[in-house]
């Protein structure tokens, strides 16, 4: 995982309430090897018309949108299927942070595991930011994970945000969670021995 302390980058608003992970990456693509890069699948079907041509109106298809590293999205973004491919597609397309009033639970944990920072801001703030980005696509936002502060463009000010402290630590330092958990192996084994003894069918 790439360590993340602070990112200052252009942002784009991708509208859509309850944007599920099938929209972020359709199921037919998630059998691809990660090494191939998942960026080409990002929003694959919703950024194209029925004939398969890129829709010039889709925010990420507009000129200059390739530079975006931050996306503003709507509430319950990433609901639906647990496919981590949704996060791979965003991360491989260079997206480092997402801003929304709320995220799907599994998507939220998948994002944290991959160093993609999900920033929750109040709905009113998101709505004001949506208006601003609609008028000024590519306006610059700073997401400072160390300070827990996101600085919005125009006169929208700076806002505190938080992600679970445990994940924050891991993302700031680029720590590996499996390795960290392995340091607790003695406690895990002791717990496990008692648990299996009490429920022997678990060990068969």
């Amino acid at each position: 995982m790439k360590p993340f302390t602070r990112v200052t980058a252009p942002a784009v608003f991708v509208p859509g309430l309850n944007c599920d992970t099938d929209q972020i990456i359709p199921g037919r693509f998630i059998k691809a090897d990660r090494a191939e890069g998942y960026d080409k699948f990002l929003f694959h079907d919703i950024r194209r018309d029925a004939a398969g041509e890129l829709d010039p109106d889709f925010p990420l298809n507009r000129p200059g949108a390739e530079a975006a590293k931050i996306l503003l999205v709507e509430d319950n973004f990433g609901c639906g299927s647990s496919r981590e491919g949704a996060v791979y597609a965003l991360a491989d397309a260079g997206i480092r942070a997402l801003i929304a009033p709320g995220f799907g639970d599994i998507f939220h944990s998948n994002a944290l595991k991959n160093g993609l920072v999900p920033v929750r801001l109040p709905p009113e703030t998101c709505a004001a930011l949506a208006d601003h980005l609609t008028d000024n696509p590519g306006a610059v936002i700073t997401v400072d994970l160390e300070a827990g502060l996101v600085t919005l463009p125009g006169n929208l000010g700076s806002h505190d945000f938080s992600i679970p402290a445990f994940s924050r630590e891991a993302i700031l330092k680029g720590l590996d969670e499996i390795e960290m958990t392995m340091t607790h192996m003695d406690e895990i084994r002791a717990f496990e021995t008692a648990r299996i003894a009490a429920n022997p069918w678990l060990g068969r």
Partner: protein
Amino acid sequence: MTDPRPPAPRTMFEKIWAAHEILRHPSGPSLLYIDRDLIHEGSFHAFADLKRRGLAPRRPKQVFGIADHYVPTLGRRPEDAATPAIERMIRTFDANMGWGGVRHFGIGDPAQGIVHVVAPEQGITLPGLTIVCSDSHTSTQGALGAMAFGIGQSENAHVLATQTLWQMRPKTMRVTVEGRLGTGVTAKDVVLTLIARIGAAGAVGHAIEYAGPVVRNLSIEGRLTICNMSIEAAARLGMVAPDETTFRYLQGRLYGPDAQEWDGAVEKWQRLPSDEGAVFDREITLDGAAIAPMVTWGTSPDDAVPITGRVPDPAGMADDDKRKSAAKALEYMGLTPGTPLDGLPIDRVFLGSCTNARIEDLRAAAAVLRGRKAVVPAMVVPGSTRVRDQAEAEGLGAIFREAGFEWRHSGCSMCAAMNGDVVGRGERCASTSNRNFVGRQGPGARTHLLSPAMAAAAAITGRLTDVRRLMEDAP
């Protein structure tokens, strides 16, 4: 000195959580012991991660592999797959299971099926267990009183490597369904009613416990259906307290307690239900008698209304975001505001998925179909090979075939369209699955979610149809 006060009443969720907490990190999350991890073909990312680290599944006996998302439903060999890429997914899965020494229900295995159908059927799912699977509908399995939830592939690799998971404790919500359900109203209609009421983000961050007389009177199949769609209200998981119905269902299942262990296990499970007076962070009550057969009109599972209703008019919606998304949904669905849903012509019917393809679902659909014919293309994809075999033995297979349904082999099939079973662009499909998302059943596919009985009714008339009418004048 011992504390003279009685212990504070706890919810079932709190009890199971506490029984699995190995330690708590100072910054919040708990390290939970995971009793069983279920994996399917999508797990290749986690296996690649393990191999890169030079690790292997640490507790292979607590891991079960089940081929479902990519398996063909017309044949039972990997080479029957729709494309070489899909065939490769099935073969990679077999190879990874062999490499990891993991018990494996592959294509062709008599116990194969959709993971959330197979796990309860085999006694892999048991009360009081923590169960994870890299699939959001793992919530299904909470119907037996387990804490079962979906995870991503990074978390899956973590579980395979350590048999644990770091988790923040969700809040709790109790959904009480009072009264009784009317004729023709099923578990699917209950859960669609709930989602329509609280919204697709309505239970985010919560573990739901379903309670009340309607839930108590449901079979395990019905409870599995309700818990299945908890995730469609954004809940972390759903669960139902184990009771006599649960114990009867589980007795003698392969991976559960054996005959000697049985009574002791039941005694323990009887202590799991939420204590009298336990406090939930949120309470929702539904009146069972007021629930009608439901159908969705849009592209989010909360776009559900009674079959007697009409396609809503976005212009009348107060919330700006809702208005915009409803208008977009109607355009995608090819629907005009005000159209009655009863009578809307459809192009095909899909009876399948981990929501509604268990034996009881097939019985409910067959009861409507008996002596009638489908007038649109329709298929049944049983939830597991065992369900398929049982349905054949009960004569249901014959009823479906005589009604003109395709009688397929088990798998996820058209629910997620990953195996090549797709709904065509612009086609309107009456589906017993759980997601009506844009493109879920294939690019441009238009999905209407409904119960198995309602799906059978739609097949017979070629239109969305209030099944209660057909039940009145059965041939």
